[in-house]
Structures are given as structure tokens and as C-alpha cells.
């Protein structure tokens, strides 16, 4: 993981050693003795879906499920590298058939063992259309997915042919295509195992989940809090150093921040925009500023004749060069973002700084020349569509100002009332020109930022971008024999993007957060989540 976070982590450990050695304790952000039986509270929002792993799509439910369940693998919070959890090893010789060996001794919170069939049953259940799971497309790599999840109508079978249980601790996964980095995907919450009891009453388990993770479910007072406690039989490598997490529901980030300052709440999600300028002063060494695996882009409607001709790539490059990213991130966004120079977010495995090349550097003169060379922006007018409920107005206006001043192109923002309206317009191809888009990592690998967005016909390719060379390189990368080769393969594919410029990378997200005086050793991973189990509650 990213330098800044690692540095802070090391620093925290170092101070704790010194303080323990000299027998000091301190308030503030320093370190003191901790009590492993005490719980801490975290800012949350009421889950929008039942608490089933394959149904976790928004942070409210997702963060809770992450703590209740552990999959075959997860990602080390400090390096973002993959590490084995329930899996002992995952072997493959051809990047298509994977043999999974489980560790013995893992248990669900109800005491039943975690066996191979718990994974296979859970995946089959999650993939089947009739179970209405939002994350079902995650299983689409597995052979037989189309049988349980046909394009239309209800499925006739409920098991995927690619999944075979060998014995209690072994199962094999056969994919319909080669995906060398499949194990990276397995860290996603949708691939969690489910206890046998779940399948008898999925709705009931959605209200009272039983998992195999470091924390077990205690209670859920709707709109108030979800209480968890440490699971004593947890077998993972990240044994909790606290007694549990209490997820307190907040309607606004301002309210959560007010509670954090008075230590009525221990760790927050993100500081509210109104406090961005002051939070480092308010919290001192309890403030957090860490990179996040997410990127903000401006996408183009390449399916429209106005933007489809190859010349227009130059216009898009020009527009990109007309945006003064450094100034906007520092002023309008108050340092909560970092100017982007690639399509893959910083801190992600395979991140290559400067992949966008000159096209992401601010150069008004060259911008103007490129736009003229490409035949100009249609009508000399550009509209950027965005959702007005996401706090995007300020930076869209700033980007437009930057473009207008640098090139004279009449750029204006086009707000849609809310997120779902904007999404409907984007996916319904009812736009004209440009729109706000972005990508938050599902797993910290560059393939996720590229394959899922820029491949011809990819589910999130809202631009209609299609480049045979990119598709070919991505295919080769998927078929590589190791994850390391996949990563370099996708870096090659990313190098194709500047020539077509389907989107303009703007900036990478950052986690601007903080914690109360009651906790210590708080660090955030590239998903923007704290390393839950490592947080210590002061004694």
C-alpha cells in the first residue's frame, strides 16, 4: 500500500514501543495500553439490502458483512496484496481450472465447520437468478453460470457445472474462459461461504447473519446500530485486537464528525466536505489522509457520430490537457483528491504512474492546438452530465472553467437531480457529449480498472468504447500464466488508451478520516475501510 499510510503505520508502532518502554501513557493520538475486550464504534448507514454476502453492494451493508465473513482470500490492509484466509492454497496449471484446498479448523459462528460445500453451495445460491442477489454477476466466470443465470427468464437448474466438491477440504472451480487473476476476485465479499442453516431460511439469515469472520453478529436495532463481538474461534491471520465493532447509523457525515470530536464515536468513514479544510487542525495526529483505490473520470459518448470519428481522440486529448488538475484538487477539492496520471488508481497492484502520458498534463497551448487539429468540439459546446446529489457540482464547474479559459470551448455542467436519474440517462444513452464517471476497485488489481470498463461490450463500458488492440491485449493478459504476467499484460493494454482517450482521468480518491481519543493503531486500506481487527481500544 501507498507510502503515506505505511509511513504512518510504522510511526504509530514506533511510538508505541517508546511509550511502553518508558512507561508513559498519553491522551491524544499517542499510544497507550489497550484492552482487547473493549468494543469501538464506527460510522455507518442503515444497510439497504438484507445482510447476505452476495447482496452487499453499498457501504452500509458491505462493511458489516466484511467483518462477519471471511472468504478464501483477502487483501493485506497495509500492502493491498492478496493473502490466504480460509484457503490453504489455490492451484492452477492452466488459469482455467483452479483446485482449492481449505485449512482445517475454521468454524462458523454457530459452531458448524467451514467445508468445501459451504463455498460451493453459497456460490451456486448467489449466482441463481431467482435468489435476486445483486452481486450475482460476480460468478459469471464460472462454467455453467449461464444455466443458473440465463439472460432472460428463470433458470432451470440451481448448480453450476464448473463447481465440484472433492471432499470436505477440497473443491475445484472450472471457468468458462481463462482468467489468470481469478484468485484476486475471490477476496470479494460475494465469494464468502455460507453455513448450512442459511439455505433453509435465507431471509431470516439476512436479518441475523451467521458468518465465519473475526466478528460475530449480536444485534441489529434498525436505524440505530448493529452490534458485533469478537468471535473467539476465529482462525484467520488477522486475529482481532479489540472486543468488537459497533456500527452506529448516522444520517449525515456532519453529525458523525461532531460525535467524533467529542469522542462519542470512535472512527468515521470520511470527514464531511465542510470540515475538509479544518479536520487536520481539529484532530491533529488523529487525522487520516490515505490513498484509496478509486478514480474519477470524464467519459464521452463515443457511440454518437459527433464523437465516434478517430480524429475526435485528439479533441479529447486536448480537453484533458486543458484541465488544471493540480489546482482544482488543491483548491476546490481541498486536497481530498490527487491529480491522476493514469486510468488505474494509485496504490493498486499494477498502478503505473504517468500511463496517460502528456495527455494528462496541463498545457493550454497544446490543448488548443490539438482541439483545432481534431476538428474542434462539435458546436464548440461541451456539456458534462453529473448527479447533483453527490457533491460533484463544485468540481464540474471548476473543470468547465478550466476548459473554457484554456481553450475557449463553451463548457457547462448538466446536473441530473440524483444518482439514479443520472445512471438511467448514461446507460440509456440519452446524453450528448460528456458525463461524470468513475471506478471504485472491487479488488486491488489493475485488471479491474481496465477489463471491466474499457473492453468492447464490458458491463461498465458506458462509453461504447471499442478498440480491437485493447481487447486483444486484455485477452492475452487474462490468459497469462501468473498474476505478475497479467499485471504487465494489462499495463500494455492501458498504454493503448491514450491514443483513443475514451475517458479523461481526473483524480484519485483519498480517505480523509480520523479517530477518537479512545482508540489507537487506526489505519485505512485502499478500499477506504479501516483495518478493523488491528484497531486497539485504550484500556
Amino acid at each position: 500500500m501507498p507510502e503515506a499510510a505505511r509511513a504512518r503505520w510504522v510511526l504509530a508502532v514506533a511510538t508505541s514501543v517508546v511509550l511502553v518502554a518508558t512507561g508513559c501513557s498519553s491522551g491524544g493520538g499517542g499510544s497507550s495500553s489497550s484492552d482487547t475486550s473493549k468494543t469501538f464504534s464506527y460510522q455507518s448507514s442503515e444497510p439497504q439490502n438484507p445482510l447476505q454476502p452476495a447482496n452487499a453492494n453499498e457501504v452500509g451493508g458491505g462493511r458489516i458483512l466484511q467483518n462477519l465473513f471471511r472468504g478464501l482470500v483477502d487483501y493485506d490492509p497495509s500492502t493491498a496484496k492478496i493473502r490466504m484466509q480460509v484457503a490453504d492454497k489455490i492451484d492452477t496449471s492452466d488459469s482455467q481450472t483452479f483446485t482449492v484446498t481449505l485449512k482445517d479448523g475454521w468454524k462458523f459462528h454457530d459452531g458448524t465447520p467451514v467445508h468445501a460445500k459451504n463455498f460451493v453451495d453459497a456460490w451456486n445460491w448467489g449466482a441463481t437468478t431467482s435468489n435476486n442477489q445483486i452481486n450475482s454477476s460476480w460468478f459469471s466466470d464460472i462454467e455453467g453460470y449461464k444455466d443458473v443465470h440465463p439472460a432472460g427468464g428463470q433458470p432451470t437448474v440451481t448448480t453450476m457445472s464448473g463447481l465440484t466438491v472433492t471432499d470436505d477440504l477440497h473443491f475445484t472451480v472450472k471457468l468458462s474462459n481463462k482468467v489468470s487473476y481469478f484468485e484476486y476476485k475471490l477476496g470479494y465479499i460475494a465469494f464468502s461461504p455460507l453455513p448450512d442453516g442459511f439455505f433453509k431460511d435465507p431471509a431470516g439469515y439476512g436479518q441475523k447473519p451467521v458468518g465465519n469472520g473475526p466478528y460475530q453478529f449480536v444485534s441489529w436495532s434498525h436505524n440505530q446500530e448493529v452490534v458485533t463481538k469478537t468471535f473467539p474461534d476465529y482462525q484467520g491471520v488477522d486475529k482481532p485486537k479489540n472486543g468488537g465493532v459497533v456500527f452506529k447509523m448516522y444520517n449525515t457525515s456532519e453529525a458523525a464528525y461532531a460525535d467524533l470530536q467529542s469522542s462519542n464515536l470512535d472512527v468515521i468513514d470520511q470527514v464531511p466536505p465542510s470540515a475538509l479544510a479544518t479536520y487536520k487542525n481539529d484532530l491533529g495526529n488523529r487525522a487520516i489522509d490515505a490513498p484509496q483505490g478509486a478514480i474519477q473520470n470524464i467519459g464521452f459518448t463515443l457511440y454518437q457520430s459527433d464523437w465516434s470519428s478517430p480524429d475526435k481522440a485528439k479533441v479529447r486529448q486536448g480537453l484533458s490537457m486543458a484541465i488544471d488538475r493540480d489546482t482544482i484538487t488543491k483548491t476546490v477539492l481541498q486536497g481530498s483528491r490527487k491529480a491522476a496520471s493514469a486510468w488505474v488508481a494509485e496504490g493498486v497492484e499494477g498502478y503505473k504512474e504517468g500511463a496517460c502520458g502528456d495527455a494528462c498534463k496541463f498545457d493550454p497551448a497544446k490543448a488548443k492546438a490539438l482541439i483545432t487539429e481534431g476538428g474542434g468540439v462539435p458546436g464548440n459546446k461541451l456539456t458534462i452530465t453529473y448527479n447533483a446529489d453527490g457533491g460533484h457540482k463544485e468540481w464540474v464547474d471548476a473543470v468547465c472553467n478550466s476548459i473554457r479559459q484554456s481553450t475557449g470551448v463553451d463548457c457547462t455542467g448538466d446536473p441530473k437531480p440524483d444518482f439514479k436519474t443520472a445512471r438511467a440517462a448514461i446507460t440509456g444513452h440519452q446524453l450528448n457529449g460528456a458525463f461524470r464517471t468513475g471506478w471504485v476497485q472491487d479488488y486491488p488489481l489493475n485488471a479491474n480498472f481496465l477489463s471491466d470498463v474499457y473492453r468492447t461490450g464490458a458491463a461498465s463500458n458506458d462509453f461504447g468504447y471499442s478498440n480491437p488492440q485493447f481487447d486483444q491485449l486484455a485477452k492475452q493478459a487474462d490468459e497469462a500464466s501468473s498474476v505478475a504476467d497479467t499485471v504487465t499484460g494489462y499495463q500494455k493494454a492501458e498504454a493503448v488508451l491514450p491514443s483513443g482517450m475514451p475517458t479523461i482521468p481526473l483524480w484519485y480518491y483519498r480517505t480523509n478520516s480520523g479517530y477518537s481519543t479512545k482508540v489507537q493503531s487506526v489505519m485505512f486500506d485502499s478500499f477506504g475501510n479501516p483495518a478493523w481487527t488491528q484497531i486497539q481500544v485504550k484500556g
Partner: protein
Amino acid sequence: MGSYVLRRVLQMIPVFFGTTLLIFLMVYTLPGDPVAALFGEKAADPAVVASIKHKYYLDQPIWKQYLHYMGNLFQGDFGTSFTGRPVTDIMAGAFPVTIRLALLAFVFEMILGLVLGLVSGLRRGSVQDTLVLILTLLVISVPVFVLAYIAQTVFATNLGWVTPTVQNSYDLSQLMLPAIVLGSLSLAYVARLTRTSIGENLRADYMRTAVAKGLPRRTIISRHLLRNSLIPVVTFLGTDLGALMGGAIVTEGIFNVQGIGNVLYRAINQKEGPTVVGIVTVLVIVYLVASLLVDLLYAVLDPRIRYA
């Protein structure tokens, strides 16, 4: 009297149908697809979208959806939210919070508002009167969220008397501060209404008669003056109770009170038809009952008003 009440209750039935239909249509015409929005920034899977829509009856034409909803409603089923929770459960969790908050605010604004109005109305032009006028003007002109943030900063952050937000939404003592903020605007109106009303009635003929009869001042004020002056105030308070129940979104947000305002706000954002219609229907009924009570109170306050 009895037949009047019965007539009023019967009038509620068409109003009930009208509002449910209107709200249902409004939610339906909100832009965007609520099921696709569940997928966030990711592309929505058409098969799952179709399956979820089928589950929630959203794949039917609007009139069928409405009939289906009303059919269930008469069996006591308010529908299910996307979280899989029945709407009745959601309301059972949030309404007690809002009722507590609204009643606290109501009691606060009523008692303090009447006292302030009485004091300043009886002593027009005095120092107290001027003070009340200035204070109420200040409260009316400052938006409620500014008041809320000031109260939060002063009483929680600076003085430390309370926690900045409500830790347990069912705890009356913690709801005091939000209730005072919520009720402060209406308090100002109540005080000013009472003041004006008392000022007018002081000059009425029956007041002169009462004074001429030699009645004690206390009796004159409580029996004659105050009772007659209360009619406009009661009208305002009655409608305000409904407003306090449904209109606390801003205050609930700042103090993190998990009441009906926030549930409704979230449901509208997510276009959750059953939740929105259920809550609004209950709010409409509260409003109707409150206005019926106000009308009945008129007769108590002024014996000249009779309902045959």
C-alpha cells in the same frame, strides 16, 4: 356533536384514498429506476433486475400496482422495503421517535409561547414586550439549521452539557435539545399570535363588562381574556403538530435522530413506493385527526360555536 364527528370521520375516507393514489402516482413518476440504482455505479444485471421487479410487483402497470397495494393494505400489509423489512416494522421503529420529538417540541412551544405572548400582550410597549418581540423576530429570521448548529456547538462542544447528537433516539432527555430547536420557530409564532390576540380582546366589550363587574384580575385574564384569545393560537398549534411530525428532516439530520423524517427522506431518494406511501398516509391521518380535534376545541373555548 356525535353526528358531526361521524361526518368528519367519514370525510377522511375519500381523503385517504385520494392521498394514497396521489402519493403512489408521484413516487411512480419520480425519475430513474430504483432497482437499477441498487447496483450503484456498476452495470445492473438485467436478469436480476427483472427478477427483483417481479418480486416487488414493479413489473405490472401502475393501476395494477395500486390495486395490489391497496388490497394488501386492507389486510394490514403495508408492503416490504428493499431491505426486506416490512414497512409496518419500519414505521413501528421510527414513529415512536418522531412522536416523542414532536410532542416535546409541542409542549415546549405551547407553554413557553403562551406565557411569553400573555406577558407581552398584557404589557404592550413595556420592556418585556420589546424583549419578546426582538427575540421572536430573531428566531423567525434565523433558519432552523443555523439554530441547530449553534445549539450543538454551544451546548455540546463548548459547554459539554449534552452529546452533540442523540445517542439513543428513544431517550426523552436526549431529545430535549433537538425538540427545543425544532419547536423554537413555532414558539415565536405562538407568542406573537397570542400577543396580538390578547391585545385585540383587551379592548373588547365583554372585557369592560368583566372589569366593571368587579371580577378579580386573575379571573378576568384566565376565564375571559385568555380563553377567547386562544382560538387562533389553537388553530395554529393544531396544524403545527402535523408539521412537526413530518417536517423535522433537517433537525433530525443534524442531531442524528432516527425518526420518520429521515426514513421518509431516504425512501424518497431510493424511490421505495411502499415506504413512502405508508408513511405519508399515516401522516395525513395524523393531520386530519389533529384538525378534527382543533375544530372540537373551538366549541370548548367559545360556547357560541355549536356543532349540530
